């Protein structure tokens, strides 16, 4: 356990060095909040609800979704680099499970992001926009659980995309495709309930909605009561399936390396 924590800590230190990028990122996030705010204000100028969602709930949804989406990525990029440059062979010889090592790196990164990136945004958002809090502490708790599960689903998925580097040379194209898919289907831009029916049906069978839409809907009250537990069930299903998939594909991939004689 200790060694994985050291790996996480190392990544945190590395990240603090990139302060110029940090400020640029903060400024850009603030601007995105501004755009979101004014855009939805204008959308709601002539009506009080869209699909039974009022402005306050909508802004809450969009902002929380924006913040959560920042966590949905993972180590796929790094993994792909490792694979392309052959580093992975050395990594495999080291005395740790490489999958857990990568996830430890990822956790370090995300904890730093939570402190540096998300908290300031949360403060700004709650000061300047009328966002609503969940009605009960129970909802907050459920949201936290759901968000963590969603983040892990995203991490596993990202890992799977990274592993593809074993088979395809052009990882970059696959990544862009992945980003677009997630933005599109996770409900990060707009609640999935606003989608046209046919698209909503497709979305319900994909893992992406479990990353952002379900947790944020719990937070903003778009789903409540027993539906919340249903949502958590769906999330757990995806979490477990993707984890198994990660394990299976990873062991296949390692076989591949051995065949290449590394």
């Amino acid at each position: 356990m200790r060694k994985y924590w050291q790996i996480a800590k190392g990544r945190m230190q590395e990240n603090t060095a990139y302060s110029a990028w940090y400020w640029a990122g903060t400024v850009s996030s603030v601007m995105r909040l501004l755009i979101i705010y004014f855009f939805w204000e204008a959308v709601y100028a002539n009506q009080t609800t869209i699909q039974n969602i009022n402005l306050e709930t909508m802004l809450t949804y969009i902002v929380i979704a924006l913040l959560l989406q920042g966590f949905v990525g993972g180590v796929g990029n790094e993994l792909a680099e490792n694979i392309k440059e052959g580093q992975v062979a050395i990594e495999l010889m080291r005395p740790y499970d490489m999958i857990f090592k990568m996830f430890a790196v990822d956790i370090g990164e995300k904890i730093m992001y939570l402190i540096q990136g998300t908290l300031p945004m949360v403060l700004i958002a709650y000061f300047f926009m009328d966002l609503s809090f969940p009605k009960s502490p129970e909802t907050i708790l459920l949201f936290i659980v759901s968000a963590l599960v969603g983040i892990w689903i995203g991490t596993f998925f990202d890992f799977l995309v990274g592993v593809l580097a074993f088979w395809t040379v052009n990882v970059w194209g696959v990544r862009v495709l992945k980003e677009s898919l997630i933005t599109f289907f996770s409900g990060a831009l707009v609640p999935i309930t606003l989608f046209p029916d046919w698209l909503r049906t497709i979305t319900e069978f994909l893992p992406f909605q479990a990353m952002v839409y379900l947790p944020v809907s719990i937070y903003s009250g778009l789903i409540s009561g027993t539906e919340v537990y249903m949502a958590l069930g769906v999330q757990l299903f995806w979490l477990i399936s993707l984890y198994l998939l990660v394990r299976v594909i990873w062991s296949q991939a390692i076989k591949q390396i051995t065949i290449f004689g590394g």
Partner: protein
Amino acid sequence: MRRYTRLYWEFAKSHMKVMMEYRIDFLIGVASVMLEQFASIFFVKVVFDHIEQINGWSFYEILFIYGIAATGRSIHQIFFDNLWTLGWQYIRPGKLDRLLIRPVNPLFHVVADRLHQDGFGQLIIGLIILGTAIPQLDLVWGAAEIAMLVIMINSSGLIFVAINLFFATFSFWMIDSLPIVWAVFNLSDFARYPLTIYHKGIRMFLTWIIPYGFTAFYPAAYFIDKSGYKEFALWTPVAAIACCFLAYAFWNRGLKAFASTGS
């Protein structure tokens, strides 16, 4: 001038050869940019499924604004994309010093060093958006209007170039200003929607300080006269040229400061 045209042609020819060599990469690049754009348009579409208009602008009118920005940006992306890399590809590794002793304008050299393939995806999607939006708008298109549209789109592209050039120039003092360039570039997202939806301060900022307003909204407002900006929109080409001069002057200053540090 003729010499530079010929030089650019030679540069471009070799880029084309590289692009044709890696055809799959070219296609993936083009497709990914198109998909990215498509996602954000889809977002607007989903919202408009539930409402009639935003601030008096209909879906196709917003699409028109989008289209101008996307097409304008493609000019910038295809021909001037290399400005992004000024810090980490030229100044940090010392490559710029090598360019300085060559008998061509260093800015020209940096710009001509790359023809960006993804920009073609941007261009295609921009034209598709415009092609979708324009027939749905209640406008009369004569030769004058088309000429005006072309001028506006080119101006939009030049403003993208000028703003990037201006902020990339900071690299001369701080080695790599990429974070600044990136943060400023993100401001252009504001320009996707009618500027009238924003607070007055933001509108002023995007008109007079970092003039992204001229990359999409004002040009569109010339054709769709909703908010009384038709006359003001005529300043777009002037703004574009002024920005380019300003950015180029700043670039020259930066270059001088860089060269005089000596090492």
